[in-house]
């Protein structure tokens, strides 16, 4: 039975960078790309702020015909998967022993809304391929066809915890020997104006108080936070056993030492101190660690008033009050289904760089006593990191990462 799942390849895309090198550079420089969202179908009598990916720079390996048929979410998945695939040298692995888990559900709402609006008065001409593309699992189809994956491929959903859940599911597929290598993709959540409106109406998405200063709107853990700011992103993480990685002479980024999942037993988007604490404690226990081992936390930190407060209380309750932390969402926005995967990538890139990225707009932290990385990046060698993702439906996830020596 395999042990020690490690990460051997990663791919990422966000509004501040396409590919790991550009992404890491932008993170450490504290870059942001917030503005009134421009993508077709994002606004309707509205001016929602967010961070959108610029035109995706594809290499020739992905054909024009594939891209024509692929939704934005599928295009982003193909982009990040290619980067991760090449880095982990998966061309050298038996495709029957490679799996894929796509994290996210109901991810292509903007594309679907576009189709519905385009064919409202002429349904007879609806494209037959709508029957394929309306399902999230279409991403599995695109990715397995492009890369010849033959092991397994399916989607998992856990709202904003989907990205971390996908990594957990990939690790389980490797640990149970279903495949030798499993790639977790945190899928790009493509919101339409309907979802933006719902999230705003619910009070989850930030208000328009910073409409004239979009760069100031996304402020996790700051006293002036009032909800999350959306940011398009997508990430891929290649998980395999250390033994499997050694066969191809790879130098892993980190080992996934353990994870914790805990439910609040509450459908509402009310964060629960008990649930979050339980998930962190479960992850530490599974890793055989005490909180003293952790030297960096990548929190969920969306900018939600109650969410931010509850998360910091959970960190304190778990003895993590003295640990360095920053907020990746302050730079890239909230990727929802993608967030967990992309933030694990941000964590492992910081681990490799020996630096922690800044947190934007953290002018007055709601808890100033914590060890924040504020406006400037700092030098810090992460050895053992904790990454957190929470989602609607009361799901809490925590992952423990150990730097590979």
């Amino acid at each position, binding site marked *: 039975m395999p042990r020690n799942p490690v990460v051997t390849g990663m791919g990422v895309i966000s509004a501040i960078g396409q590919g790991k090198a550009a992404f890491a550079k932008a993170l450490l420089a504290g870059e942001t790309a917030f503005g009134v969202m421009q993508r077709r179908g994002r606004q309707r009598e509205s001016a929602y702020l967010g961070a959108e990916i610029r035109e995706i720079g594809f290499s020739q390996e992905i*054909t*024009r*015909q*594939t891209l*024509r*048929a692929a939704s934005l979410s599928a295009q982003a998945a193909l982009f990040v998967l290619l980067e991760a695939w090449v880095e982990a040298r998966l061309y050298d692995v038996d495709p029957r022993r490679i799996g894929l888990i796509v994290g996210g559900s109901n991810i292509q709402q903007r594309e679907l809304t576009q189709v519905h609006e385009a064919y409202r008065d*002429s349904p*007879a*001409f*609806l*494209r*037959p*391929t709508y029957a*394929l593309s309306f399902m999230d699992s279409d991403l599995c189809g695109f990715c397995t066809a492009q890369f010849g994956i033959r092991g397994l491929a399916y989607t998992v959903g856990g709202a904003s915890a989907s990205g971390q859940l996908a990594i957990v599911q990939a690790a389980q597929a490797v640990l149970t020997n279903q495949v030798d290598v499993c790639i977790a993709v945190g899928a790009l959540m493509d919101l339409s104006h309907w979802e933006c409106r719902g999230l705003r109406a619910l009070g989850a998405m930030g208000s328009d108080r910073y409409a004239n200063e979009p760069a100031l709107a996304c402020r996790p853990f700051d006293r002036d936070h009032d909800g999350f700011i959306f940011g398009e992103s997508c990430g891929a993480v290649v998980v395999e056993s250390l033994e499997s990685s050694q066969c191809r002479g790879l130098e892993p980024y980190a080992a996934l030492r353990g994870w914790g999942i805990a439910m609040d037993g509450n459908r509402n988007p009310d964060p629960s101190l008990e649930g979050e604490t339980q998930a962190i404690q479960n992850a530490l226990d599974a890793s055989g660690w005490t909180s003293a081992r952790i030297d960096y936390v990548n929190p969920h930190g969306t900018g939600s008033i109650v969410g931010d407060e509850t998360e910091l209380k959970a960190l304190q309750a778990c003895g993590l009050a003295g640990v360095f932390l920053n907020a990746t969402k302050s730079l890239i926005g909230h990727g929802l289904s993608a967030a967990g995967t992309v933030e694990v990538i941000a964590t492992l890139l910081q681990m490799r760089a020996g630096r922690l990225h800044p947190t934007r707009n953290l002018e007055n932290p709601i808890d100033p006593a914590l060890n924040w990385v504020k406006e400037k990046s700092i030098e810090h060698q992460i050895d053992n990191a904790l990454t957190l993702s929470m989602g609607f439906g009361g799901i809490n996830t925590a992952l423990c990462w150990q730097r590979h020596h």
Partner: protein
Amino acid sequence: MTQMELLDLIAQHTREIVPGLDAHQFVASDRLADLGANSIDRAEIAMLVQESVGLSVPRVELFGPRNIGELAGLFLQKLNAA
């Protein structure tokens, strides 16, 4: 609309859907399957042509034509009957 114009439309939409046909010279005897279009590609191409000319043909009737010349002929016949 002539059969030739319909053939051009079929060629244009086939190039959109199927890779590697940019330089291909389409002729009436070309079969979509031989050009690399799978069944879903073929349904997509047929629908794109119908949308371009504002015609709606039941899917079952599209199984008859054996090449793109015959497909263009079927569309022409339906257009003239409409």
